[in-house]
Structures are given as C-alpha cells and as structure tokens.
C-alpha cells in the first residue's frame, strides 16, 4: 500500500514536472519585430521674388532685380540727395517643416552716417514661417548726405538664416 502510494505520488510529480517542462518550453521563443521608418519632412525655404516697392526722388534700378532660391540681387542708382529706393523680397516656406528666422545681419555692418545707407525692415529674429507661408523683407538704400558728393558706389549683403522651428 505504501509502495503503491509512493509510486502514484512520484508519477504525479513526474507528470507535473513534465507538464511544467513542456509549458516552460512553450512559454519562450524568438520574437521578431520588423519595422520600417521613413523621414517624410521636406525642408524648402526659398526666395520667390524681389521687386521695387517704393521710390523717393530720382532713385532707380540700373537693372531689374533678380533672384534665385537662395540669392536676390539689386543694382540701384541714386541721383540726388535724399533719394531712395526700397526693395521687397518675398521668402516662402515651400516645405512641410515650420522654419524660423534664426539670424539676420548686413555685411558689412552699415553706419548711420554712411553716404549710401542701407536699412532693413521686417527681419524679426525668432519669427516663424509655417509651411506654405510667405513673408516680405524690405531693404532700402538711400542717398544719405546733406551735401552733393561725387560719384560713389557701395555694395552690401543682407543675410537671413532660417532654421527649423522648435
């Protein structure tokens, strides 16, 4: 009797251990995750136009202003004192990532006493440009002298740096 009970218990235990072993074996396995990621952001902040906005006095464009996606150029003539010409430059965010104006500067830096004075309007550092939006920047060049001066020429670059907005 004693032996029979012992055998039964052992058998049960063996069955249990066997089942546990089988169960454990079935509760582990190789799991594989397959994934694909695609960057769909499109960055495209570009100059899309430049035109004369305002003329004071006998200022004029020697040649029509021109532009590419990253550069705009103008060549102005100032005849008499206080004459000036303002250009409007259109920048557009043709991408799908919001941009912001990170920095703006003139090179070289103008001085308020310059005979030929360049000034800018609407360059607000930190301002955002959302996808599809346009923004106008203005550059004015003025004959800034109380006296008539002999022929003089000056060149300048206005640099606008855009980066991705936070």
């Amino acid at each position, binding site marked *: 009797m004693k032996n029979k009970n012992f055998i039964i218990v052992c058998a049960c235990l063996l069955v249990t251990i066997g089942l546990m072993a089988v169960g454990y074996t079935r509760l582990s396995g190789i799991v594989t995750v397959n994934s694909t990621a695609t*960057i769909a952001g499109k*960055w495209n902040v570009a100059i899309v136009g430049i035109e004369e906005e305002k003329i004071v006095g006998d200022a004029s464009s020697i040649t029509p202003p021109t532009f590419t996606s*990253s550069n*705009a150029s103008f060549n102005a003539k*100032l*005849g008499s004192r206080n004459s000036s010409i303002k250009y409007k430059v259109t920048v557009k965010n043709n991408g799908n990532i919001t941009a912001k104006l990170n920095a703006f500067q003139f090179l070289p830096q103008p001085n308020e006493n310059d005979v030929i004075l*360049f000034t800018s309007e609407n360059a607000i550092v930190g301002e955002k440009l959302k996808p599809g939006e346009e923004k106008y920047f203005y550059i004015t060049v003025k004959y800034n002298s109380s006296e008539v001066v002999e022929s003089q020429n000056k060149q300048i670059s206005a640099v*606008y*740096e855009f980066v*991705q907005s936070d």
Partner: protein
Amino acid sequence: MKDKKNVLICALLLTIMVMAVGYAAFSQTLNINGTATIAGEWQVEITGIDSELEGAATNKEGTPTFTSTTATFDVELVKPGDSATYTITVKNNGSIDAKLSSITLTPQADGSSAILYEIVKQPAVDSVLAVGGTHEVVVKVTYDENVEEVPEVTTKTFTGVLEYVQAN
C-alpha cells in the same frame, strides 16, 4: 542571440545616421546682395553771353567771353548815352535740380561816376533752376547821358556772383 544583437545595433546606428542627415538639412541661409551708386551729376554753368550795343559802344576785341563758371565783357563807351546790354545765360546741364541760394551784383565802388550799371533782370534768390532749365542775368552799362565833360576816372568794373545749391 549575438546575431540578433548585431542586427539591432545596426538598425539603431542607421536610425541615428538618418536623423543626423535630416537635422543638417533643416537650415537655410538666404542672401540678398545689393549695389547702389550715386550717379547724380552736378553741372550748373554759364552757357552764353550776348550783347546789345547802342550808340557808339563797342566790345573790346575778343569779348564778351565765357567759360562754364565765368562770363566777361569789356565795353568801350564813346559818348554820353552810349550803352551796352549783356545777357548772361546760366543753364542746369546736370541731373540734379538746383536753386539760387545767393546773388551778388557789385559795381566798383570807386569807379567812374559817369558809368552806370543797371541790373535789368536777375533770378530771384531761392528760385529753382530745374534740370535743363535756364536763368538769365541782364546787365546794362551806360555812359551817363547827363555828363557834360570827360571824367577823370574813365573805367568802372562790375562783379556778379551767383551761388547755386542743390534744390531740396
């Protein structure tokens, strides 16, 4: 297991590389290049002098003359009543409007009292001499008809100065 680990590391590295390329592309510098030239031309100048003689008045040889800045006349008056009228033309041949800021017409103070200078016409101070426009100064010199004998002093000079500035 080791292979799986390597695959995972490669996948992570690839992801980081794509992120780096993407970040670098999210900035743009736009340049606007400008050139300006002061090309105004200042050219206000004398362009002519004409004379009209009466009586026995005669211009000395080689006169009247003018340059862009100076007009000169030299007349001989023979008898009382003789006269000569000179019209000096000033023209704005530049590209900048000018205005007359001052005008001074001065006969010699100690010259002959028998010689009379008269300003027949002069532009007004602050009058604008527009581009292409002209101003005239008309001066008449007369041998005083009331003189009854030849004076001791027989010459008299005259100086006229016109100053032009850029019109506002």
